[in-house]
């Protein structure tokens, strides 16, 4: 099988969509936080916690969508913690973010171990099953690739235009965007800046956790330590790639997932000649390359990383 045959293979495209789904959620989540002016470096930990929380909900007997909701709530709770420290107390977003990642990851491992101490191989749940969209999934090639996915993937795709609408066509979205550009302007219009920023961080963190939950409830069906594996950090690069725009975030996630799916299949072709580690490096290296090309011209939200302090001598 050569490179071109990979593209002709239905499985490649289906895998692309599947790999992209957690990235879509997490990138949108980080995008919302950064649009409001807050860099959320807790993303890696929140995704891990979301993966564990959603899975555990189902393992303990709950239903799948309930698990997704639970994961979102847990993510939102960590987002609230982040917001209290960075938005209300104005502490360093870099330091607090790393702290939240460390806390959420370690807490998820701790709780998992505590609830399931004896497991040598991680137990499994019945994850989201593939749902064949009626009629559409019968279309040759496209049907198999795009309309034979799990419901959580369809949800990911559907949520992109919702986030776009929310940011660009609603008053609260305007407030969020303004909070990331000039919080004094938001204050001057009588809106509570701290509440808007915190709300954005909570919602964004919820999205991130759902991205993590996808890994344990849709892509796989068990929780492994280290399964997030840097995906959260990659999403931070993807947000810059997307110029903080939801539609471009979808494009970035798909592109990246495509390259990742390609890398997996390319390993099979030349696995003997080129060691697999170099293929695994590609996603991270490509993210760095993307950042190199885009950082110069990137228009960051003007007030990103700048805390807003109410009532200080203006």
């Amino acid at each position: 099988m050569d490179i071109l045959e990979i593209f002709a293979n239905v499985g490649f495209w289906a895998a692309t969509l599947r790999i992209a789904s957690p990235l879509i959620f997490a990138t949108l989540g980080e995008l919302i936080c950064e649009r409001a002016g807050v860099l959320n470096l807790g993303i890696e930990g929140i995704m891990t916690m979301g993966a564990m929380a959603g899975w555990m909900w189902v393992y303990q007997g709950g239903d799948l969508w309930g698990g997704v909701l639970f994961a979102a709530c847990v993510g939102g709770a960590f987002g609230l913690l982040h917001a209290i420290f960075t938005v209300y107390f104005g502490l360093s977003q870099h330091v607090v973010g790393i702290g939240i990642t460390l806390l959420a990851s370690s807490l998820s491992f701790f709780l998992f171990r505590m609830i399931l101490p004896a497991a040598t191989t991680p137990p499994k749940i019945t994850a989201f099953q593939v749902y064949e969209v009626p009629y559409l999934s019968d279309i040759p090639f496209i049907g198999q690739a795009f309309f034979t996915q799990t419901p959580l993937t369809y949800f990911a795709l559907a949520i992109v235009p919702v986030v776009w609408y929310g940011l660009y066509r609603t008053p609260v979205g305007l407030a969020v965007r303004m909070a990331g550009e000039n919080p004094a302007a938001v204050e001057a219009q009588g809106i509570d800046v701290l509440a808007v920023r915190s709300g954005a961080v909570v919602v964004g963190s919820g999205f991130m956790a759902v991205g993590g939950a996808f890994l344990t409830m849709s892509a796989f069906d068990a929780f492994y330590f280290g399964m997030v594996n840097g995906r959260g950090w990659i999403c931070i690069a993807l947000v810059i790639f997307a110029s903080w725009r939801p539609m471009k975030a979808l494009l970035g996630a798909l592109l990246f997932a495509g390259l990742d799916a390609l890398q997996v299949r390319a390993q099979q072709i030349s696995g003997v000649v080129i060691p697999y580690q170099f293929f695994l490096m590609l996603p991270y290296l490509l993210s760095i390359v993307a950042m190199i090309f885009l950082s110069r011209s990137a228009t960051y939200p003007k007030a990103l990383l700048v805390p807003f302090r109410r009532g200080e001598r203006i």
Partner: protein
Amino acid sequence: MRFEPREHVSVLAAVVAPVAGVAAALLLCSGLILWTGESVGEAYWLLLKGAFGTKFALTETLSRATPLILTGLAAAVAFRAKFWNIGAEGQLYCGALAVTWLGTGMITLHPVLMIPLLFLVGALGGGAALLVPVILKNRLKVDEVVTTLLLNFVILLLVSYLLEGPWKDPMLMGWPQAAPIIDEGVLPQLVAKTRLHLGLIVAVAAALIVWLVMTFTVWGYEIRAVGHNAAAAAFSGIKINRTIIRTALLSGGLAGMAGVTEVAGLKGYLTLDLSPGFGYAGIAVAMLAQLHPLGILASALFLSAIYVGADSMSRGVNIPTYIADVLVATSMLAVVLSVMLARFRIRFS
């Protein structure tokens, strides 16, 4: 809610604040311990005993503190200049790679020469790993948080490739591990029959040197100035780029030296699990010490005690060892908050 800077922050407050933060963290984690059904008192007692109770335990704690001191210094030096180096983990492994490359038989010198050479090479390896993110930041404005983080994964994969391939020790059947460091390069033991090695002395010396440089030299002044206000520093003639590069090389070098202590001191050879997250823990070490080089000696010891103690504790009571990481993360957040409260007064209106 408004924050007013307190006019006077006593030294006492500056020391009490982190201690208060740690105490709060211990309190919060005792809640977790209660949830597991174990006794809080017994758990913390076992933790303390596991870290300091016997001579062996003490040497374990000190040897575990060695790389933490170095990665803590690495984070502190970088963060002082507001250069967010989150890649200490990868830089540590680069130092380990450099030392493995040079110290497994390529050249042989007397230990008095060999050991400093290994540290130098390890520091260069760590510094080199940070060079790319630094240049990208300076020239192309690429955010260093993401580049340093992602490079960690790349470097770890590189190590994996080397250990499974060209550097695999042919003497061992199948286990991915590099050839051992030659005898002349192994760091001597400080206490017989323990794992405590010369690396501790090197780490403490490094902390002293970093403190001297930061407090008494022009370099230290420039690093602090750039970290506080780069625009004002540039205005007064400080060369920002040069300062950041110097800081990055110093930071990466310190992390690389941590790799040396683990390969040439603790283990004797390079393995994939050389570092259980020392690079990331270094950030916690630095924050707990408020980026003060001498304070890092204390906070590294504290973190090391928690890790070593938790290992031992988990054998006595039914609490997962991850409690240590939870405790460290909680401490970090609590201290960041308590230090801020020591410097600012809250006014409610």
